[in-house]
């Protein structure tokens, strides 16, 4: 069986590093892996999505509506936007941080209220927490991606060490300690 993960957020939030670490982890477990990224235009503050798929043999590079086992959302509104991609038994792991998109800033649209509650009312398995504060606690708002991975790790059977190794393989030497701390904070949240 192929497993599907989607990582969604706002351009510039560091979704690519998260998918890189996941890809790395699954490869060391001898799975076939595909990771699809977005480059270019949408990275300028737009809505971004990356797909991570693993299994015995992965064909399609993308995850489609209703297929994701997990959606990891770096921002609350993006969680709502991409929830259509979640499968029936899937889980939405989301940061509760809100970032206003341009139409909201200019007053052309409003940011929906109580998104977390509404998602839960729809029957979505929502695992929401404040990843930004934990990232800041770890040393930098930029670690939000690793905090989220830490939290996601609770939905997997991989050992803590295996996660750490994947992180160490993907971040610069001098940022390792901060990122491990971020991972632990997310895992225990």
């Amino acid at each position: 069986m192929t497993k599907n993960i989607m990582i969604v957020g706002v351009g510039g939030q560091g979704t690519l590093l998260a998918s890189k670490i996941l890809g790395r982890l699954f490869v060391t477990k001898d799975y076939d892996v595909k990771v699809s990224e977005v480059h270019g235009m949408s990275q300028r503050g737009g809505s971004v999505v990356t797909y991570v798929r693993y299994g015995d043999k992965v064909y399609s590079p993308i995850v489609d509506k209703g297929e994701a086992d997990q959606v990891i959302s770096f921002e609350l509104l993006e969680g709502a936007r991409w929830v259509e991609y979640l499968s029936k038994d899937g889980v939405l792991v989301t940061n509760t941080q809100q970032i206003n998109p341009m139409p909201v800033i200019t007053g052309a649209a409003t940011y929906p209220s109580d998104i977390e509650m509404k998602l839960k009312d729809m029957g979505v398995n929502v695992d929401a927490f404040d990843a930004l504060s934990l990232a800041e606690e770890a040393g930098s708002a930029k670690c939000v991606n690793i905090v989220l991975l830490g939290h996601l790790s609770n939905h997997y059977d991989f050992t803590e060490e295996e996660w750490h190794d994947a992180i160490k393989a993907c971040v610069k030497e001098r940022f390792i300690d901060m990122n491990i701390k971020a991972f632990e904070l997310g895992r225990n949240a």
Partner: protein
Amino acid sequence: MGKRLMLGNEAAARGLYEAGCEFVSSYPGTPSTEITEFAAKYDDIYAEWAPNEKVAMEAAFGASYAGHRSFCGMKHVGLNVAADPLFTISYTGVNAGMVVCVADDPGMHSSQNEQDSRHYAIAAKLPMLEPSDSVESKEFAKLAFELSEQFDTAVMLKMCTRIAHCQGLVEEEDRVNVEPKEYKKTPQKYIMTPANAIKKHPIVEERLCKLREWAETSDINRVEEGSDNEYGFITGSTSYQYVKEVFGDKYPVLKIGMINPLPDNKIKDFASKVKTLVVVEELDGIIETHCNTLGLNPIGKDKFTKLGEFSQTVIAKAFNIEKEVPFHFQEEIPARPPAMCAGCPHRGLFYVLHKKNLKVHGDIGCYTLGAMPPLNALDSTVCMGASVSGLHGFNKIAPEYSNGTVAVIGDSTFMHSGVTGLINIAYNESNSTVIILDNSITGMTGHQQNPTTGINLKGEPAGKVCLEELCKSIGINRVVVVDPYNLEECEKAVAEELEADEPSVIISRRPCALLKNVKHPGPITCDTDKCVGCTACMKIGCPAISMVDGKCSIDATLCLGCGVCGQMCKFGALPLRKEIAND
């Protein structure tokens, strides 16, 4: 050597390396850019950014002529620019192997059109290989060099967004050492005067026949057996992956790895063994049309759209396989379009154009985002360079507009194809004002160096084009440089140059705010005691500014302290640049 996750583009670059490629010249363009960036990391490959795709292709051709394996890469619209050399290089053939990569963007993730570049291979009568994942991106890049030398032809490698920007597991192999080919002066092969070219055309047609024979037997076009021959699929590239995702090994598949020329007999043979023939391909019905010429009339574009990207769901739906979408958020979700970054130097200049209500001929780059609300400061965007040339035609035929119309173009785009338009303005004397948005980098495609930056692809100091001198030397007498963080200065320059009775250039100069070496004062704060909530600061469309409880609020994680908003505030609630920076 072990397997490792690689982007399709990285794998293609690895293929160039392993094939002994020595020369790479490209112009950036999503989704092709990383092939050249990864190639540049190999010490054994000389790699450069050329000013545009035509120059890149001609440079690669020169390297092949000199006897060294060469490559150039571009996005689909880049091939339009390089089409001129492409069609005649098809006649000359090559000396050492030459590979041309073109990357399509179905779904237009970051492009201005959705053209299908496979048409070019057919029109230019060149072989084209189409990988369907990272493994094939590497394998086909290597094979392309072999075919190039075996058949004396440039070979095209066709990527697309989902192949180029998807990582898959790839095994690294060693580089082969290829001896340079000898340079021999052969006028009848390389001088394409009519007398020589007319003799080359039949050779090109013959070459296609030989390539077709090769395609019949090569396993680049392979049949994968199925357990049920109710349907048989002819497909390749991403579509192959989607068909396999939905049906696995159920139905037989003829996977096409070489899109031109297609293997007629293999196709007919495959068709004869299945009940219903189905062709699945993104964008145009190229394989399908070919099947029709063979009298096969498969299911194709009657069932599958010519628009956008496919997915497993598109295939499933075409066969009435319903898929459950359990969750749908009921309320309207505001769109999150890309926006100019906080601190972007383009913003101040665009605010001035918006305020003066000018007609603005736009071009392609980050500054195309100036078309978005609240600035709404663009009137057209067609292709690279079109702002400058379009402005000339507009002003020449309708001079009554010329005092209220400008063109805007980025530094990289100006080098690419704006300068020829400016020469036309100088030569044919239209009263035009061109604004060059010089942010010292090719921003939109992710920070590539260009001829105005003084640094090359490998990060070394390099030649540097001086924009002021260039404009003056082609005959533009009025050239003025402004700082786009200074609204008053910009407004004054725009007013003066529009007023002037001759062609002029305004260079709006500030490095891209995302460049690592650019220092910023850091976030400002709003003095809420002074803020009256007039929302004047919101008019510049900065993502760091919003209204909270009726007062301006600055997002400290985004604000860099550019000071543009301070010039909007009449109440002194936001600081001016001179109060926060000493530049």
